[in-house]
């Protein structure tokens, strides 16, 4: 049994009066991929966004229950610190209106990293995200000039630049074409040797390709959790 990196205990999220997540307890192992699957509106994205306290940003939500990072209560960390340790990649690529290098270095630059050190981190994260060969000659070009797949890998590089211990991915391939999807999946296969990855996906096939553990959500509850093969073979949808 691998170590547990991230764990929730009776996690609940309410949007106004609607309870979107109704008490989910799930353990996510280190150096492995956990895929969250289930029909639309089953609470899997809501669950994911609770893991790095993203619900605090939008407001209008009430979160209860506990999130444990390395056994420590995440609520005791400053949200900024938690989000550095638990990175996130969104459904649609969301590069900032600035250059490729500035995007990749955004996180470290917030914490005062400058100059040569920042350039080193930028190059390293772009390499980790398998984007380096495509952009090394135009690091100062506007990030929005990249293709959708490249933008998404830039967003992954941006998250990796902070050396996160966990990477949360909210349907990272849903806006990408098959070739770009394959590139991102290869990347996930690399990452799972180093850190914990939690990915929301609509694709059974993708869950089977990348995940070790699969958690199936249903109507705001955890319906089933276990090794990918077993859970996916039982799923009929």
């Amino acid at each position, binding site marked *: 049994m691998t170590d547990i990196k991230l764990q929730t205990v009776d996690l609940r999220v309410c949007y106004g009066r609607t309870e979107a997540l109704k008490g989910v307890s799930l353990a996510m192992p280190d150096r492995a991929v956990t895929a969250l699957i289930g029909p639309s509106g089953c609470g899997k994205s809501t669950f994911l966004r609770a893991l790095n306290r993203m619900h605090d*940003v939008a407001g209008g939500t009430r979160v209860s229950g506990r999130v444990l990072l390395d056994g420590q209560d995440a609520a005791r960390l400053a949200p900024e610190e938690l989000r550095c340790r638990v990175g996130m990649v969104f459904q649609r690529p*969301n590069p900032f209106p600035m250059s490729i290098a500035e995007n990749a270095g955004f996180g470290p630059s917030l914490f005062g990293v400058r100059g040569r050190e920042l350039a080193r981190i930028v190059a390293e994260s772009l390499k980790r995200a398998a984007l380096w060969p495509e952009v090394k000659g135009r690091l100062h070009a506007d990030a929005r000039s990249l293709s959708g797949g490249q933008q998404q890998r830039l967003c992954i590089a941006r998250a990796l630049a*902070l050396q996160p211990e966990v990477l949360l991915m909210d349907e990272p391939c849903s806006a990408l074409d098959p070739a770009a999807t394959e590139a991102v999946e290869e990347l996930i296969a690399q990452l799972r040797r180093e850190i914990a990855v939690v990915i929301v996906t609509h694709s059974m096939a993708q869950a089977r390709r990348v995940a070790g553990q699969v958690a199936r959500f249903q109507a705001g509850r955890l319906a089933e959790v276990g090794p990918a093969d077993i859970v996916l073979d039982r799923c009929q949808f």
Partner: protein
Amino acid sequence: MKAILSALAVTVTGLLAGLLGLLVRKGAAFVTVDFLLGLPARAGQSGGILPVLVSTGLLVGGALLLALPLGAGTALYLQEYARPGRLVEGLRALTEALAGVPSIIFGLFGFSLFVIRLGWGWSLASGSATLALMLLPTVIRTTEEALAAVPRELREGAAALGATRWEAIRRVVLKSAASGVLTGAVLALGRALGETAAVLLTAGSDLGMPTSPLSPGRTMAVHLYILATEGLSEGRAYATALVLVAAVLAVNLAANLLMARGQRP
């Protein structure tokens, strides 16, 4: 129906072109280097308009310098920090209402507050402060709209990288909203350039070269108004109008360029 509408369009465009044509026909001959860089003589009947240009620049520049930070700050608060609710809705309704108040009312208010109560007299300072108040609603509204148009994904993306709310605003949101904010500023500048009544009431109509913020001054719009109503020099009135219109057009062109730049992917 199409014929009627196209005839309408042609007529209206023709009228606008005629307006410009009139200004050019009656004023262009007077717009010379001596006119632009010379000092006025005989109450503006001859000579140039240099002090008028300087007063206009200082007055309008001062107004923007006051209105932009105040307005942008207010918009940031309303859009990014304030909890949505009655108070915010009230403040927003108030600024909307202020945007519709005739400028002469602002002039009257500025006259009683800055010219009389604060004792600044008819001065560039009084004029700038009054214009700033008049521009605030526009600046607030355009800034708010620009901020509201920033996709939620960008704020969340910044937050997900450990940015505090202020860091996300300063480094991502404002950058994304910049062209919208600038466009609002340029539109405000255009309005300020053309304002006459409120400026006449607060900055006076002295033709001298301003020497301090408390000097009175005469802007292009006021100069034009006085030349025309006093029957001093029809040609110079048209020439001033031409320079003013050129300035306003330049400002609007700049606004369009900025907007086009902002829409680039």
